[in-house]
């Protein structure tokens, strides 16, 4: 499944009320490391079933970045039942991102 672009309008529906766990990638177009990990995030989105991958452009969605206290990008959050269960700052290899979601 392709990743979903999150705005403040679809956040509640896609993330907070999601029935399946969500990996949220906070990124921005000017952020080099974000661009570098973007293909990995897409791969995870296509390959891993049972989760949803969402992307928040912090430049456009400053409220959402603020809501989660994001002060450094890339930031990845793993959200289950509307709650952040794991978070990770900076670019990480695919294995580390999968591990963060307890997927091997």
């Amino acid at each position, binding site marked *: 499944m392709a990743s979903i672009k999150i705005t403040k309008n679809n956040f509640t529906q896609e993330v907070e009320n999601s029935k399946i766990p969500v990996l949220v990638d906070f990124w*921005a177009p*000017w*952020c080099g*490391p974000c661009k570098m990990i973007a293909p990995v995030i897409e791969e995870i989105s296509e390959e891993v079933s049972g989760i949803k991958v969402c992307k928040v452009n912090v430049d456009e969605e400053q409220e959402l970045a603020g809501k989660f*206290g994001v*002060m*450094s990008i890339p930031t990845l959050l793993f959200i289950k039942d509307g709650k952040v269960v794991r978070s990770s700052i*900076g*670019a990480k290899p695919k294995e*580390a991102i999968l591990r963060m979601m307890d997927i091997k």
Partner: protein
Amino acid sequence: MSDVIIIGAGPAGLSAALYILRAGYSADIIGMDGGALEKAEKIENYFGIDGLISGKELVRRGRAQVERLNGNFIKDEVVGISWNGDFEVETVNGIFASKAVIIASGASRKKLRIKGLNEFEGKGVSYCAVCDAFFFRGKDVALLGSGEYALHEAQELLPLVKSLTLLTDGAEIKADFPDEIKIVEKPVEMFFGKNIVEGARFKDGSEMRFSGVFVAAGSAKAGDLAKKLGVSEDNGKITVDENMRTDIPGVFAAGDCTGGVLQVSVSVGEGAKAALSAISFLREKNA
């Protein structure tokens, strides 16, 4: 534009350069000196060399070999790196582009140990001004550093922040900082805050409040460059596979910056492997 930029002119970087150049590709080698090897008085455990050579002489010979193959040496300090289809390496005096990058910039022997730096990483402590300056628009921000690298980060921050204070932590100022930056030269005891960083306490007991601190102490180290590029690293050591590839295509690393045993022989071997991986990458890219 060159085929490969090699950051670092120690044994790993020079060894990589030999393989790149001998394969017919061009290489820019950027570095200030020959690294830790230059400081070794005598090399006694290197295959085929019987103890009559100093580290400095070994570096000189390696460099001469690379020069004979027309390797382009640039004596400069790397302050930034980015990717936009090609790689761009920014130094104090210029910008250089390449199709691939080999990071061989050595290991920093001293590590910055100020309480709060690890704890607040991503919570007000940042290692990448270009990535994170946005979050500190209109805020009072501190910058830990005192040299050209800090100046480079300051230039990213100044247009956005309300105020910028340079914390030298007692280090000598080695760059020409603009007047609008306030300079505090006292040694830093710790960074404090509740959930996010709120300020610094100095060793003399005084305190200063700010919303964020950018770390650019000394020169840009391998781990700093990795963070800017999105290459994974662990505690300043770049993560590589057995062929010295990082997890980002086109970026390779070799020598002390990948951790391990810090031996010349290992650096030379890793430099060769990184170069061979870079050559395969270039062949595939050009295919």
